């Protein structure tokens, strides 16, 4: 069966009645207890999307609280240094919360309020989703519980401190590999037990169908801004445009691409960069690049790193935010339809990309988007001068200062 993307319909809505994209990705593989809460959320979300007052409220917070739009800036020094394509950055890390996670957090908190829920619970890897959810929940008067792997708590301390400062309870997860994957499992288990009082915020475009949709709906703000900015800057959509984005769960990349979905891929190419892990490790968090098999993880069918038996495999990445064995069903669909191209960058490549970009330009990307910059650095010299590369700089490096100091000897913003 050849898979096709329909034009004029958001990708998040192109699933069948079982919640699956292309008949094989996504769905709702959940315990019976969650069926009803998920159905309630589906109904509410579908109603709210059509509700003008809800959309107005969302836009109000995006403009006045997030401060939309985030800047699109040329990276002139880097472009001159590399030669070839013009490199630009969409500095999404200028957001409060210093990442793209704020869009999902705001939309979920608005939904939670309308659902009459008193508190939200969420998972986090790098702590960006957790920190931002804690911040937004506080603003909206909601209580907040964040599940985070013990390994991540250690390596992303600045974000843990921030979560606590915003009054969130940080629940350390000690099971399994003690990273994002276990945090998501633990958070879902918590929701199974507390689904009537609490609202679950899945931190990326993963999980049961409705959470993929809500997150994709939220982060789409990035490309809604970008398409306007690009038209302003170039007068039209350039003949050769490449949108480079790091892929962990896949929320920032989906949001970065969604408004450009209907363009021909020869004109607007999507490149997703997965975590290649340490150079010599085999635990790459790159299910799309490495052709992993389809499996079921956290309620959804997706390409996922696993062994022959179906036990989910461990990953190893310098970026806590990318340490995830699965990938959004949306990206599985984009891969199979060949609308997007996926590749990976190693820890070492991400570190040197960080070093180069932050020394030359007035931005300081975290190690997650540094993976995407690594790909830009690789391909830009080989491309024509009229090719435009835009990298989504979707996180700020401050959270990584300890790792960078340790690996590069010093941390300079």
């Amino acid at each position, binding site marked *: 069966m050849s898979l096709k993307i329909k034009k004029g319909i958001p990708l998040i809505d192109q699933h069948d009645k*079982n919640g699956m994209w292309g008949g094989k990705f996504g*769905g*709702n*593989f*959940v*315990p*019976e*207890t*969650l*069926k*009803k*809460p998920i159905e309630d959320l589906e109904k509410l979300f579908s109603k709210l999307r059509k509700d003008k007052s809800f959309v107005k409220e969302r836009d109000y917070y995006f403009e006045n609280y997030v401060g939309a739009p985030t800047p699109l800036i040329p990276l002139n020094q880097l472009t001159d240094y590399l030669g070839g394509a013009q490199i630009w950055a969409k500095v999404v890390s200028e957001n409060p919360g210093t990442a793209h996670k704020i869009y999902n957090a705001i939309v979920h908190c608005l939904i939670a309020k309308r659902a009459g829920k008193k508190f939200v619970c969420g998972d986090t890897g790098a702590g960006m989703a957790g920190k931002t959810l804690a911040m937004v929940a506080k603003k909206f008067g909601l209580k907040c519980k964040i599940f985070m792997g013990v390994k991540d708590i250690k390596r992303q301390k600045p974000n843990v401190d921030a979560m606590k400062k915003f009054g969130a309870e940080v629940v350390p997860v000690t*099971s*399994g590999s003690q990273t994002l*994957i*276990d945090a998501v*499992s633990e958070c*879902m*288990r918590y929701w*199974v*037990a*507390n*689904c*009537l009082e609490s609202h679950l915020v899945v931190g990326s475009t993963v999980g049961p169908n409705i959470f993929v949709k809500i997150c994709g709906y939220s982060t789409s703000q990035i490309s809604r801004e970008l398409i306007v900015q690009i038209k302003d800057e170039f007068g039209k959509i350039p003949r050769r445009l490449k949108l480079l984005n790091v892929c962990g769960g896949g929320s920032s990349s989906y949001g970065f691409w969604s408004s450009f979905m209907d363009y021909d891929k020869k004109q607007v190419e999507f490149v997703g960069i997965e975590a290649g892990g340490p150079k010599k490790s085999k635990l790459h968090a790159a299910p799309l690049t490495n052709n992993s*098999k389809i*499996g*079921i*993880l*956290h*309620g959804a069918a997706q390409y996922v790193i*696993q062994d*022959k*038996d*179906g*036990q*989910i495999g461990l990953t190893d990445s310098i970026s806590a935010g990318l340490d995830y064995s699965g990938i959004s069903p949306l990206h599985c669909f984009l891969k199979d339809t060949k609308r997007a191209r996926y590749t990976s960058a190693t820890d070492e490549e991400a570190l040197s990309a960080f070093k180069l970009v932050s020394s030359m330009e007035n931005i300081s990307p975290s190690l997650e988007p540094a993976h995407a910059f690594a790909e830009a650095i690789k391909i830009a010299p080989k491309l024509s001068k009229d090719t435009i590369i835009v990298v989504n700089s979707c996180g700020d490096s401050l959270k990584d200062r300890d790792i960078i100091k340790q690996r590069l000897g010093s941390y300079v913003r």
Partner: protein
Amino acid sequence: MKSKIQLAFEKCKKEKRPALISYTVASDPNQKKSLRILSSISPHVDLAEIGFPFSTPIGDGPDIQTSSFRAIKNGFKLRDIFKIIKEYNKINNPKPIILMGYYNMIYQYGENNFLKDCKKVGVSGIICVDLPWPENRIFAKKCKKKSINFIQLVAPTTTKNRIKKIIRESHDMVYYISMLSTTGGKLKVSPKKILENYNKIKKINPKKNYVIGFGITDKTIKSLKSADGLVVGSLLCKTITNSLKMRQNPVTKIGKVVYYLKKRII
């Protein structure tokens, strides 16, 4: 022909007591010992659930997680479960076996392949935690064709309309989740309330056998004994964990615990 599961419930009904159903994890703490554990509890139970451990469970509480991770760490492979059951069925008077686990394992093994091996070693039923109705329709039909019970779950959040549809498509046994919790949580609803809900569900089709699970321990089991069947899982997993910690033999210890559970409901 009546299924072994149906016959087990009928026997209990005749004896005017609920069926006692154990849940233990395959290869916990290792393949050999898990078989001995199964054999040691077998005389006291009417049905035995065996979990196949999964690395990322979204419905299990800490006790079953601990057992599962221990089994995986000790090298559990899905094919081992068939070896365990094959051996178990050689003992005197083995009880009907129900396999319980997460769908990805079945999916990777291949649904047909899995059922073929279940049939070969004499598995009587299957519970798949994250394959709810209607997603489980095709698989449930495949089970029925092989005369294996696909056991549907019903939760306190399940709507009445949905319950009716689920029961209509269920086989001999329906599993009622006592409360909103992962497995092994503290009973946060009174037994009276649980039985009230339980009886409402049973009324829809009294011919089926309904069991209650989640949060059942030696302390709560007696108060729920009017049900058709009661599942005890986390308590048994915890017993294994504690015996290992105290360097005791989990096989004799767990046999005693299950014997005592049985005494509470007869």
